[in-house]
C-alpha cells in the first residue's frame, strides 16, 4: 500500500488526540508536517508528536513536495481558503467539520476541488467521523436490517448548560463566534447529529427552524428548534438548547416495529426497543476517534476503498443547518 504523507494546517486541540495520532496510526498513512500560525506551538506539536517538519505558514506546508495530502484543522472561517489553496496545488483535502461557515462556501470548496487543478479533480473529504465509528455503524446496521421496521420519525433532544468560558464576553471561545464558527455550539455539535442522520436516513429535503439567543452570553444562537422531512418521507424534530441546567443528549429513531435511542456524544448504550423487549448495545469510542474515518480516506486515496464522508455529503449538512438558522440574524447564510 502507498503511504499517504499528510500535512496538518492548524495543529490545534482537535489534532492532539482525536485526529493527529490517527493520521500517524492509520495503515498507509504518515504525518510528515504540521503548521500553526504560532511557530512555537507548531514546533512544540512537532516535537511532542514526532513530526519531522513544522511551518508557521499554510502555503509553505501545502506546497511542500513531501506532503501528499492536506488536513485542514483550523476553525471553519478558514476552511474555504485553505481547501482552495490545497486544491490548486493538486492535493487531496480532509477538512474538519463543519465543512465551512455556510453552504455557499461548501459549494465553492467543492467547485475548487473539482476544477482548480489542471491535472483534474482532487478528492475532498470532511471529518464527519461518526460515519465510520463502530458505535454508529451498529445503528446503521440495525436500521438497514429492518430491526425497527419502516422509519417514521426522528426526535433529537440536546441540552447543555452554559460553559464557564462563555461567561466572559471579552474572551469568548471561537466556537460561539459566528464569524469564525459559522454559528454557535449548535453548528459545532448538531453538525454531527444531522450528518449521521443524513448517512443512515438519506438527505433532508425540507427544513424549518427557529433560532434565537435567550441567555445573551455571546453573539451566536443558543437555542434552535426545527422540524424537517427527509427525501424518504421520514419526519424529524429537534431542539438544541445551550443554556439549561443540566445535560441531555438523546436521539430517538422511531419505526413501525420499534425504536432506537442513542447518545451522539457520550458512550451510553444504544437501546433497541421492539415487541420483543429492549436490548442494549454498549459500544465505546476509540482513543483516536477520527482514525477509522481517516483510514477510509487513506484507503480511498489508495484506490482500495471508499470514504463515506465527502464534500458533497457534508455540504448537505451545512445546508440543513443554514435553513435552521435563517431566522437568526447572527447567521450569515450564503444561499
Amino acid at each position, binding site marked *: 500500500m*502507498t503511504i*499517504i504523507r499528510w500535512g496538518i494546517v492548524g495543529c490545534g486541540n482537535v489534532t492532539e488526540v482525536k485526529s493527529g495520532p490517527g493520521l500517524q496510526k492509520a495503515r498507509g498513512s504518515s504525518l510528515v508536517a504540521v503548521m500553526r500560525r504560532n511557530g512555537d506551538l507548531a514546533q512544540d506539536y512537532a516535537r511532542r508528536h514526532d513530526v519531522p517538519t513544522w511551518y508557521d505558514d499554510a502555503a509553505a506546508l501545502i506546497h511542500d513536495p513531501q506532503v501528499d495530502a492536506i488536513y485542514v484543522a483550523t476553525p471553519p472561517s478558514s476552511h474555504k481558503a485553505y481547501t482552495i489553496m490545497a486544491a490548486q496545488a493538486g492535493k487531496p483535502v480532509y477538512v474538519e467539520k463543519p465543512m465551512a461557515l455556510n453552504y455557499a462556501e461548501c459549494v465553492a470548496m467543492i467547485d475548487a476541488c473539482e476544477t482548480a487543478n489542471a491535472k483534474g479533480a482532487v478528492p475532498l473529504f470532511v471529518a464527519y467521523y461518526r460515519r465510520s465509528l463502530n458505535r454508529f455503524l451498529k445503528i446503521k446496521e440495525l436500521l438497514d436490517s429492518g430491526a425497527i421496521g419502516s422509519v417514521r420519525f426522528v426526535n433529537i433532544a440536546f441540552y447543555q448548560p452554559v460553559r464557564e468560558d462563555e461567561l466572559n464576553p471579552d474572551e469568548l471561545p471561537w466556537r460561539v463566534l459566528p464569524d469564525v464558527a459559522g454559528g454557535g455550539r449548535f453548528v459545532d455539535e448538531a453538525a454531527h447529529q444531522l450528518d449521521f442522520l443524513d448517512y443512515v436516513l438519506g438527505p433532508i429535503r425540507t427544513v424549518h427552524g427557529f433560532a434565537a439567543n435567550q441567555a445573551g452570553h455571546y453573539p451566536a444562537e443558543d437555542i434552535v428548534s426545527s422540524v424537517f422531512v427527509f427525501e424518504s418521507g421520514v419526519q424529524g424534530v429537534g431542539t438544541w438548547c445551550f443554556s439549561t441546567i443540566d445535560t441531555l443528549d438523546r436521539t430517538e429513531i422511531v419505526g413501525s416495529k420499534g425504536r432506537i435511542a442513542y447518545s451522539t456524544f457520550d458512550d451510553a448504550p444504544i437501546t433497541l426497543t421492539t415487541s420483543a423487549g429492549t436490548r442494549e448495545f454498549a459500544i465505546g469510542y476509540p482513543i483516536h476517534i477520527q482514525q477509522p474515518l481517516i483510514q477510509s480516506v487513506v484507503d*480511498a*486515496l*489508495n484506490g482500495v476503498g471508499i470514504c463515506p464522508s465527502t464534500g458533497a455529503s457534508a455540504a448537505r449538512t451545512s445546508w440543513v443547518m443554514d435553513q435552521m438558522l435563517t431566522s437568526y440574524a447572527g447567521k450569515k447564510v450564503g444561499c
Partner: protein
Amino acid sequence: MAEMTNNKPIILEVKNLKKFFPIEKGFFKRVSGQVRAVDDVSFFINEGETLGLVGESGCGKTTTARCILRALDPSSGEILFLKDSGEKVDIAALDDEEMRYLRSEIQMIFQDPYASLNPRHNILDIVGEPLFVIQRMTNREERQARVTELLELVGLRPEYLQRFPHAFSGGQRQRIVIARALALNPRLIIADEPVSALDVSVQAQVLNLMLDLQRKLNLTYLFVAHDLSVVKHISDRVAVMYVGKIVEISPTDELYYQPLHPYTAALMEAVPVADPRVQSAMIELEGDVASPANPPSGCYFHPRCQYAIDICSKEPPELIELRPEHYVSCHRAHELNLEGIGDPTSIDHPGKREEAK
C-alpha cells in the same frame, strides 16, 4: 523457431515480445502491479503468408498487433522486420522518425470501418492522406489518379471519390479502409478483426478481396481474429494466444485437424455449427479466463484444463516443436490425443461432430 520456409524469407520475426501495462490505483495513481497483456510472445511470418492470430477477448492479440506497429511501445523483446531494401530492422528499437518511414511498409486495417473513417473527409482525402503525409505527394491530380487506381483495386467505382463515408455500406467502408492501407504499397498488413463488424454475407466478399490482393501484390498478413471459421478461410498458419502467451502455432489444416493444446481444441468447440443434427462431444471450457494482472502459476491454462496434472500448476511449459512446424506449449501435448474437427477437407464446419441420436 524462425527459419526460412518454402523458400520465402521471413518478413517479420517477433522474439520474446512483452507488453506490460502498469496497474495504477487511487488518486496518486501509484503502480500496484502489472497487467501482462503480452507475455513473452515469439513467432514469425514468411513473406506472402497469412498468419492468423486467434484467442478470446483480452488474450493480447490486439496488443501484440499494436506493438508491431509501434502504436504501443513494447516493454521488451524484438520485432525484426525485413525491409524492402533487404535490411532487417528491430521495430521495437526504432525512434518515431524511423518508424514514420517504415510505416509505408507496414499498414493496419482496423476492426470497425464505421469508426476508422473520418466522416468529414471524402474518399479522395481519406485514401489519399497517407500519400500526402508519408510520400509527400502534393500534386492533387497525381494523388487523385493513385486513389482512383486504389479504388478500382478494391472493387469500388472511381466516381465515389467525392463521396463521404456515410454514403457507403459496411462492406464498402472496409474496402475503403483496405484501399487506404494499400496506398503506400505496404508489404505487411496487420488486420485487426477486419471483418468482425460486418454482416456475414459481406465478410466473405472482404476476405476474398484480401486473398485476391495478396496474390496480386504479394502481401503478407497478420490476421487477428476470434472467429475460427474466418481464420481458417484466410490463414496459412495459425497462432493461438491465451492470457498473453502463444500456446500453439501450426499450419492451419493441421491445427484444425489435430490440435495439440487443450485450449485450441476447446476454442474449436466454441464455434457454432448451423446444422441441428450435429452434436458436440467435446467438453466445454469451465471457469473464467485467467487475469493477466494475476495469472496462475505454471501453465496459465491449467485451472480450466481437464487434462491438468501436478506439473501444470508448478512449471510454465515451453513452446516446443512437437511436429514439423507445429509448436505447442503444453506439458502433456505429447501424450494427449485431442480431437480436432475431423477431416481437414471439411474444416469449414469446425467442431467435433456426431450425428444426433
